[in-house]
């Protein structure tokens, strides 16, 4: 029983990790809370639904398309909405509100195209491959989520630390003005960051679609959990988002175990507030 609880926490944490990774990356570079980040997960999921289930194409191909699509949409959002705003020196709050508008509009468009019906992406609904781990159970999909989360975290960390691209991102993250003065084309790099971050979000949505399912409205919920994970773990820090995500997963599930399921969201946000009071920098940041 206890081991299942831990596994549940890890599974939940893995999903939050994916959302947090993309979010953290974008936040690091742009320093504003992009509320539209979540809806890109829905975009990814629904793309796979469309290509994979409706059109019947190969599921891996559909997944790739979904990821790219989400990335492109995120890139587009930056280019047509956020970038012009940044050029006008808009404040973080204006960007936040604009991202809210984008969230509302995109979510409604998805609902128009696909109706609000809850959809699951998994093919074989009956027999799922499961693995027994220390007396607990984890499905194949969940294992994939976990591995993907860790893999992306590793790749991102490596990119950020060792490649030129990564160092450029870090420079922008530290001080955008200076980066620009030094000659970095910040707008272009940020565009790429949006693409990558949004693609990761799309992947998160796709995997959630396989594990449970998707609805046009899953975006905001996932995003908020991703934000909590990021802040708790250390905003702007790749490892931070991951640690925060797993911590959140644990706290939520232990909360359900000890208190009751209906308070799950309240518990998650209570965690956020506690950290904001006592350690706003998060776990990983000094």
């Amino acid at each position, binding site marked *: 029983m206890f081991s299942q609880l831990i596994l549940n926490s890890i599974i939940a944490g893995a999903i939050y990790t994916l959302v947090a990774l993309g979010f953290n990356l974008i936040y690091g570079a742009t320093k504003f809370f992009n509320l539209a980040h979540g809806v890109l997960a829905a975009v990814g999921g629904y793309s796979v639904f469309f290509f994979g289930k409706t059109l019947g194409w190969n599921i891996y191909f559909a997944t790739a398309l979904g990821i790219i699509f989400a990335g492109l949409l995120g890139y587009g959002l930056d280019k047509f909405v956020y970038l012009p705003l940044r050029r006008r020196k808009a404040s973080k709050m204006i960007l936040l*509100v604009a991202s809210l*508008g984008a969230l509302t509009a995109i979510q409604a468009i998805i609902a128009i195209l696909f109706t609000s019906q809850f959809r699951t992406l998994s093919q074989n609904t009956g027999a799922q491959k499961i693995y027994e781990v220390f007396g607990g159970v984890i499905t194949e999909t969940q294992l994939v989520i976990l591995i993907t989360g860790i893999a992306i975290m590793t790749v991102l960390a490596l990119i950020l630390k060792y490649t030129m691209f990564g160092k450029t991102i870090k420079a922008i993250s530290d001080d955008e003005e200076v980066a620009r003065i030094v000659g970095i084309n910040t707008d272009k790099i940020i565009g790429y960051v949006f693409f990558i971050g949004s693609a990761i979000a799309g992947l998160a949505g796709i995997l959630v679609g396989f594990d449970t399912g998707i609805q046009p409205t899953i975006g905001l919920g996932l995003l908020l959990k991703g934000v909590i994970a990021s802040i708790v773990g250390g905003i702007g820090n790749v490892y931070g988002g991951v640690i925060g995500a797993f911590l959140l997963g644990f706290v939520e599930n232990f909360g359900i175990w000890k208190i009751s399921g209906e308070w799950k969201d309240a518990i998650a946000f209570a965690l956020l507030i506690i950290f904001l009071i006592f350690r706003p920098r998060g776990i990983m940041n000094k």
Partner: protein
Amino acid sequence: MEYLIHLAILFAIYAILGISLNLVVGYTGLLSITHAAFYGIGAYATAILLTYFGVNFFISVVLGIIIAVVISFLIGLVLSKFSGDYYALGSFGFNIIIFSIFLNWRGLTNGALGIAGIPKPEIFGVHFFSNTMFLIIAFIFLAVVYLAARFIVRSSFGRVLKAIREDEKTIQVFGYNALYYKLAIFVISAGMAAVSGSLFASYITYVDPSTFNLMESVFILVIIILGGLANLRGSILGALFLVLLPEILRFVGLPFDIAAQMRQVIYGIIIILLMLYRPQGLIGEYKL
């Protein structure tokens, strides 16, 4: 005509919410996204007191304000430690926590089942049963709130608030305790929001948690951004616009199976366009 009166009452409720939030966001510069929680506290206070205990509406308004003040004081204490984006996130958190309480503390609020049959206001034997009469009460409350807000804004207290918005550290150097001011205005604004809630409860005659979630707080924020921050008349204008907008869109004959969603799309696009081309809102004097 009845339809217009209905819209006018809704407008009054949102105008009060807008004015009260503007005091915190527009004048003091604190991005608070938890206003729906205090709206809800006022609504539930009135709902419970009127329906179960037969308390007079106007007394319930006062009690609602007191409860909102106490709770907002505690929340405000915590929030005052944050700034900027983190303030917003912290306020999100409180909104969700209070919403969960509305939803799950069934013994108090009846949870998702809601409280129905809330009676209309009554005082000195005058029973405000018609919408027109209710409209009069709503507008009286709106006028009182507006005047109170205007008084605050024009006073030296208000000047300190604006100073905090511009540069908190500097004003502290001059010996002003910023914490005290931030807390005070947060609490005052919460009390006003509770008044809105009481009006809502008695007018709609039914309350349930769904009205007081995060998206509602966001909606109130959009009202004041649209109308213009740090401008009380702007909040009134914003409320007018955003209450009328969905109604206007009802008349724009969109094909029915997507009409409702199209409204959301239009709504979202309007927000984006506003941010891109007129971030100070219609008549605001402060850009976020």
